[in-house]
């Protein structure tokens, strides 16, 4: 039976919130896939927040984090006319995203291995996280240099966003 037209505005609102939440989940899981992963801490620290708000702290250090709708509560998306950002709350987020230089510990001084397969193992060629080249050395990089910019600009972000919106909108009542 067709749904009564009086629910249309409410249904569209619900569908839009679903779309936004699902898109956030898709993007955050896309960022986990694209980004580095040593302990898993950085991967667990993505948050969707209103512009200007601070993200929370990392949720886990036990492997790569897998996001679902529980990480993006519906209540967050009740305000209208606001911009949302996906930001990382790890203390070393800027270093992990190759935005600033950092100080890195040689793999020789570590008692564990990264949870993600390295993309480069060898000599450190600069002070940014991803500046590691193959060859003799003990530096490890688990995501290419500038993975963050590449995710944003290279098409992966728009693909994840589109997929999330499509899935989320379609799941809403009245649009199934």
């Amino acid at each position, binding site marked *: 039976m067709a749904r009564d037209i009086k629910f249309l505005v409410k249904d569209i609102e619900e569908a839009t919130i679903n779309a936004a939440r699902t898109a956030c989940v898709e993007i955050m899981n896309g960022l986990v896939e694209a980004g580095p992963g040593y302990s898993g801490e950085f991967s667990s620290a993505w948050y969707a927040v209103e512009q200007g708000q601070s993200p929370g702290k990392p949720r886990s250090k036990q492997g790569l984090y897998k996001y679902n709708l529980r990480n993006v509560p519906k209540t967050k998306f009740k305000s209208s006319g606001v911009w949302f950002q996906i930001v990382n709350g790890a203390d070393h987020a800027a270093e992990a995203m*190759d*935005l*600033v*230089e*950092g*100080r890195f510990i040689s793999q020789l001084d570590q008692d564990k291995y990264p949870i993600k397969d390295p993309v480069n193992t060898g000599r450190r*060629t*600069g*002070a940014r996280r991803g500046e590691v*080249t193959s060859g003799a050395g003990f530096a490890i990089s688990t995501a*290419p*240099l*500038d993975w963050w*910019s*590449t*995710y*944003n*600009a*290279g*098409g*992966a972000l728009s*693909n994840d966003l589109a997929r999330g919106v499509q899935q989320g909108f379609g799941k809403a009542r009245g649009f199934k």
Partner: protein
Amino acid sequence: MNYQAIRAAVENPLLSAFSGLSPAVPVYFDNITAVPPNTTTEYVRVNVTFGITNEPTLTSSVDNARGAIVIRIFTEKGRGPARNQTLLTTAVNVLEALNDTAKTTSGVFFRVGEINGPTFSATEAAPHFVGRIDTSYVATVLS
């Protein structure tokens, strides 16, 4: 797909622009080790990354690639931002010029998106003040 032609389309004009300055400023591209990090010599690092290749578009051409261009300017720390910003302007001018280039029947048609930054950083350990901009690009190989 001709990744090398795409890379050259952005690297060559950047190299020419910084080489043409007086004094010339060295530019280091992907997989080239930059000057030792403990020197105060100014230099430029350009990283070109590739995202999605051959994304379907509304045009007949599918020979295209998207990606990011990240430009970092290293100048001496503790001397203010002026020199760094002067060199950033050179880089931004090159990117703007790329967008002004007319489409031809061969070669690479290159367009950059909005430019993020500049952002600046300096760490206690490193001798450089670093200015950073990045932008997206879409390049189509024409034949």
